[in-house]
C-alpha cells in the first residue's frame, strides 16, 4: 500500500540514475526490478489547465492493456482507468477522474498535447536487513530527461524522507512540471502564446500593434479547434479576441491614423459577425439542460424535438463557420500587416496618461448612461449600457499592466456585478427571441403539440428571468455608482470621479 510518491527533478541526460545507488544513505542498497517501455500520450486542454494546476494525464499501452493515469500535484497516481478515453469532455470522464479534474476542465475538451516512448523502471531501496523501505520509479523519455519518483511505503515515511533528502542533496530539485512540457518541439504541441505586457514608456502605436499581433495569434490558434469542434471554448475564445481587438481600435482611434484603423476594424467586425450564429447556437445548446430543468416535471422531455432542431442547425452553421475560418479573407486578417500602425507616432504623452484618460472617460460614460435609465426605459437602453460596460471592461483589461494589480482587481469586481445583471437581462431576451423563432419552425415541421407547448413554457421562463434581472437593475446600478465604487475607479486611474 503505497502513498503519494514525491517526484524529484530531471537531469537532461538521465545520467544520475546510475548513481542513485551510491547516493543513498549508508547501509542502503538499490534493487532494480524491471524496466518497461511504453508509448505514452499526454492529454490536456488546449489552454493547459491540467498542467497549470500540477496534474498530468496520460494514456499508455495498447489494446487490452491500455491504461489511462491521472497523476496529482504531489506526484501520486490519483486514478487509473482501464483503456483509453474515448470521449474527451469532463462529463465523459470515469467517475474517479471527474471527481478530481471535472471542475477544472469546465467546458474544455482533452486533447493530445504530447507523445513519446517512455521507459519506466521500478526499483526498491533496501536497508541493512534487505527490507524494502521505499520504492523508486524512474521514468525517462527521449529529449525530456528522466525523473525519479520516491514512493514511500506504509510505516516507513521517515526512511523515505531520508532517501528523499539524500537524492535531493545529490543535486536533484523538486519538480512538479509534467514531463511532456520538456519534450522536444514536434513531440509536444505548442504552448499558447503568452500575452505581451505593456510598458508605461511605450509608444501607443507599438503597444497597440503588439497587442493586436497577440490577439491575431489567439484567433489563428483557436481557429483549428473551432473548425474541428473539439469544444465550444475555441470559438468563444476566438470571438473574445475579436472583440478585444475591436475595442482596442475603438479606444485608440482618436490617436491612430484612420486609414490604418478603418479597414482593419471592418475586417474584425466581419469576423465577429460571421461567427455569431454558430456561437449563439452553442450557447443555446449549452443552456438547454438548464432550460429543461426549469420546466415542471415531464415537460423537460418534451423539448427533445427542439434539441434535435438545435443540433441540426448547429451542424449547418458550423459548416459555414468552417468555411469562413479557412477563407482567404480570414487569413488576410490574421496576417494583417501591422507595420504602418506600429510606425504611427501619435502625439499623446505617456501611455499611462492615455490609458488613465480612456478608462476614466469610459467609466464616466457608463455612469451617465446608467443614470439616465428609469423604470420605464426600454430594454434597448440596458443593452446599450451593457456595451458601454464591455468597453470599460476591455479598456481596464487592455491597459491592466500599467496599473496596480489590486486596484485593477477591485475595479473589475465592481464592474462585473453590474455586467452580470445586464448580461442576464439581455441573454434571457435573446434566448427567448431565438426560442420563439425555433418554435415557429417546430410548428411548421411535424413536431407534436407537446414540443410547441414546452417551447412556449421555456419562453415564459426566459421572460421571467429577464423580468427578474430588469427589476434588479436599479439596485445594481446604485451599487456601482456608490462612493466606494467610484473611489475604486478613482484610485485606479488617479483621476477623481465626479
Amino acid at each position, binding site marked *: *500500500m503505497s502513498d503519494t510518491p514525491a517526484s524529484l527533478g530531471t537531469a537532461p541526460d538521465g545520467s544520475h540514475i546510475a548513481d542513485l545507488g551510491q547516493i543513498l544513505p549508508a547501509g542502503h542498497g538499490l534493487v532494480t526490478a524491471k524496466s518497461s517501455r511504453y508509448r505514452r500520450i499526454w492529454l490536456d486542454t488546449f489552454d493547459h489547465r491540467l498542467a497549470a494546476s500540477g496534474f498530468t494525464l496520460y494514456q499508455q499501452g495498447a489494446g487490452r492493456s491500455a491504461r489511462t493515469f491521472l497523476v496529482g500535484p504531489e506526484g501520486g497516481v490519483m486514478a487509473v482507468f482501464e483503456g483509453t478515453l474515448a470521449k474527451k469532455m469532463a462529463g465523459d470522464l470515469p467517475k474517479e477522474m471527474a471527481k478530481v479534474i471535472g471542475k477544472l476542465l469546465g467546458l474544455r475538451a482533452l486533447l493530445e498535447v504530447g507523445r513519446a516512448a517512455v521507459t519506466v523502471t521500478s526499483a526498491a531501496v533496501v536497508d541493512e*536487513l*534487505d*527490507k*524494502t523501505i521505499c520504492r523508486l520509479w524512474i521514468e525517462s523519455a527521449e529529449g525530456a530527461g528522466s525523473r525519479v519518483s520516491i514512493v514511500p*511505503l*506504509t*510505516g*516507513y515515511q521517515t526512511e523515505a524522507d531520508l532517501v528523499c533528502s539524500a537524492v535531493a542533496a545529490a543535486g536533484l530539485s523538486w519538480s512538479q512540471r509534467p514531463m511532456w512540457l520538456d519534450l522536444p518541439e514536434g513531440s509536444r504541441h505548442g504552448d499558447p502564446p503568452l500575452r505581451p505586457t505593456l510598458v508605461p514608456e511605450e509608444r501607443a502605436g507599438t503597444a497597440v500593434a503588439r497587442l493586436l499581433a497577440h490577439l491575431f495569434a489567439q484567433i489563428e490558434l483557436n481557429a483549428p479547434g473551432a473548425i474541428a469542434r473539439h469544444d465550444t471554448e475555441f470559438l468563444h475564445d476566438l470571438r473574445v479576441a475579436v472583440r478585444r481587438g475591436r475595442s482596442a481600435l475603438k479606444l485608440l482611434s482618436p490617436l491612430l491614423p484612420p486609414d490604418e484603423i478603418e479597414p482593419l476594424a471592418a475586417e474584425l467586425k466581419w469576423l465577429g459577425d460571421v461567427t455569431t450564429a454558430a456561437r449563439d447556437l452553442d450557447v443555446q445548446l449549452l443552456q438547454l439542460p438548464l432550460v429543461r430543468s426549469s420546466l415542471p416535471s415531464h415537460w423537460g422531455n418534451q423539448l427533445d424535438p427542439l434539441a434535435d432542431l438545435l443540433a441540426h442547425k448547429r451542424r449547418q452553421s458550423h459548416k459555414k463557420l468552417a468555411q469562413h475560418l479557412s477563407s482567404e479573407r480570414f487569413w488576410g486578417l490574421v496576417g494583417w500587416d501591422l507595420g504602418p500602425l506600429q510606425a504611427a507616432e501619435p502625439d499623446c504623452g505617456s501611455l499611462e496618461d492615455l490609458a488613465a484618460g480612456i478608462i476614466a472617460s469610459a467609466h464616466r460614460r457608463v455612469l451617465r448612461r446608467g443614470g439616465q435609465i428609469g423604470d420605464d426605459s426600454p430594454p434597448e437602453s440596458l443593452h446599450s449600457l451593457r456595451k458601454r460596460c464591455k468597453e470599460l471592461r476591455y479598456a481596464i483589461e487592455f491597459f491592466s499592466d500599467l496599473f496596480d494589480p489590486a486596484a485593477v482587481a477591485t475595479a473589475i469586481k465592481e464592474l462585473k456585478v453590474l455586467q452580470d445583471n445586464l448580461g442576464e437581462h439581455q441573454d434571457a431576451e435573446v434566448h427567448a427571441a431565438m426560442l420563439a423563432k425555433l418554435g415557429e419552425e417546430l410548428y411548421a415541421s411535424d413536431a407534436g403539440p407537446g414540443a410547441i407547448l414546452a417551447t412556449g413554457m421555456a419562453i415564459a421562463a426566459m421572460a421571467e428571468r429577464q423580468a427578474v434581472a430588469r427589476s434588479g437593475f436599479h439596485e445594481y446600478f446604485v451599487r456601482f455608482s456608490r462612493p466606494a465604487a467610484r473611489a475604486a475607479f478613482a484610485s485606479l486611474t488617479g483621476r477623481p470621479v465626479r
Partner: protein
Amino acid sequence: MKVVACYGIKGGVGKTSAAVNLAYLWAKSGRRTLLWDLDPQAAATFLFRVKPRVKGGAKGLVKANNPLDAHLKATDFENLDLLPADFSYRNLDLALGSTAKPTRRLRRLLRPLATRYDMVVLDCPPSVSLVSENVLEAADVVAVPLVPSTLSLRTFDQLASFAEFRGRGSGQLVGFLSMVDRRRSMHRKLAEELPGEHPNILSAYIPASSLVERMGEERAPVVTWAPRSAPARSYRALWAALENLLQSGAGPSPKED
C-alpha cells in the same frame, strides 16, 4: 473485510508458516491484506524482515480508540502489510483483561481498518486464553493446523466445542493437516481418511518439507521463492479451500457490539 486466523493450542505445528504464505497469496490475488502477528515470539514479523516493535506495547495497543494505523508496516510485497509483534504481547492477556468487553477488543480494533484492507490474517500464539477468545470473536474462519496424530484430532474436537460454547457456528473452525510425512503410513492414512470422516477437516494438507524450514533463512514465504515446490502447491490448495469457504459465506454474520 474478512478475517482468517491461524490458531492452535500447540506451538511448533505450522501456524506461522501457514499464516505468512496464506497472507501473501491473498495479497497476490489482489486483496489488500494485513497480517497481524499476535505472537510475542514474532516469527512472522521476523520472516518479513520487520523490526518486532510496537510503540506503546500491548497496553497501548488495546487502549480505547487507539487506531492501529500508526503501527502498520508495508512488507516487500504489493498489497501486503504487517502489524508487527512486540515482546510485550506476552502480557496481551492481561492488557485485554483490563478493558471493557475484553473478548471483543480485537474485533473492535480491527473495525476501522475495513476501508483499508479486504483481508486480515491473524497469526496467533499457542494457548487457550483471552487472546484466543478474542480471535474466535474476530475471525470469520479459524484455520487450525494439526500434526497427524489421534491426539491432535482430540484437541481439535475440544476446540470445536469450545468455539461452539462461545456461540459461534461450527463452520467457523476448520482443521488442516500439517507436517505430513508421506513416508510414514500413519500420516498417509490420516491424510487420506480424516477429511472424509470429519466434516471440518480440509482435504488440503501441508507436507513436511525442508523448504518450509528454509523460510527462516530466505525470510520470505516459500510460495514466493519456490513457487513450483510441493509445499508451495499445498499452500495454494489450502488458500483456495479457505477462499472458497469465505466466499460461500462461512463465519459469523457481522455482529454489532
